[in-house]
């Protein structure tokens, strides 16, 4: 029951990856990150605005011992833009992790399989630890594995919907076939769903809205931490088999007959 997760040679102590968006303020985000026990936090690039200096995000995050950053390429509409974003992000924070996220449609924010594949191919060849946000597409997962991604991150549902693991059927096939860790990214709403993902064989989950948009992000971060730990213990302990018919747990001897 070793809880260690290795991604691209980097060892993570938690199977929970946390996004840093949508929090009310940086202090809450940092508190939630700490409460979650995560070792990997996603961040996004944006243009620096000299007139509206906002909180420094990287400083407090990097002050958390053992925490690694995983920049994403959000905003990129094609492979070329994503690759550019990846290099900028690496320059910015020095992390080899890159979450490739190419979603041309702002309405559903779903990933483009063609551009994602192309960007991953390029970045994996230049020493990035490539983590693609991708449709729950088993063949695409395999092709991404072949070009050297460190994990595949199929979506459970569209970002921010909280519809859970709506793509479960396909994720099961991805897990069965994959030689790299499978991480459910996007769609999860409840800690129970994170536990279910791990129970079915996912190596980790990535959540953001589920924590940031809850009533109490710090408490919710803790709930996810425990749920992921529970899911991992369950996976290691082997769930009972299901049965089409009932199976008694108590003796049924008619000991009370008249």
């Amino acid at each position, binding site marked *: 029951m070793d809880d260690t997760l290795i991604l691209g040679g980097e060892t993570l102590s938690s199977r929970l990856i946390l*996004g*840093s*968006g*949508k*929090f009310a303020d*940086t202090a809450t*985000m940092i508190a939630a990150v700490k409460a979650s026990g995560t070792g990997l936090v*996603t*961040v*996004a*690039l*944006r*243009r*620096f*605005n*000299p007139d509206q*200096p*906002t909180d*420094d*995000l*990287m*400083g407090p995050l990097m002050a958390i011992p053992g925490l690694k*950053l995983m*920049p*994403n390429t*959000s905003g990129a509409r094609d492979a070329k833009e994503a690759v*550019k974003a990846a*290099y*900028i*992000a690496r*320059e*910015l*924070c020095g992390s080899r992790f890159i979450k490739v996220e190419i979603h041309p449609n702002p309405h559903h924010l779903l990933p483009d399989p063609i551009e994602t594949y192309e960007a991953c191919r390029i970045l994996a060849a230049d020493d990035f630890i490539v983590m693609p946000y991708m449709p729950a597409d088993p063949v695409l997962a395999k092709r991404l594995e072949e070009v050297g991604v460190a994990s595949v991150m199929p979506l459970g549902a569209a*970002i921010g919907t909280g519809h859970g693991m709506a793509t479960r059927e396909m994720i099961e096939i991805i897990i069965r076939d994959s030689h790299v860790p499978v991480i459910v990214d*996007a769609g999860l709403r409840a800690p129970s769903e994170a536990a279910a993902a791990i129970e079915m064989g996912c190596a980790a989950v*990535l959540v*953001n*809205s589920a924590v940031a948009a809850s009533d109490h992000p710090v408490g919710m971060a803790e709930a996810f931490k425990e749920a992921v730990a529970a899911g991992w213990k369950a996976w290691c302990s082997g769930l009972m088999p299901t049965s089409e018919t009932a199976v008694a747990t108590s003796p049924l001897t008619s000991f009370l007959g008249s």
Partner: protein
Amino acid sequence: MAVHISLNDKNHDLPDGATVARLLAGFSPQPKGIAVVVNGGIVPKAAYETTKLTDGDQVEVLTFAGGG
């Protein structure tokens, strides 16, 4: 004399001979955690002092924001 550059898609003027370092020094408070892209190429931190900006340069200054 001034140098007219584009900074994050907005016009921005700098004194003649200005470098990336000079551009950044003009911000208050000093930005932490940024990357600089000039005409599509990333400028390493080590080159901020030596990278001169000239008329028409497209400069992007980027930082991290919360993201999922």
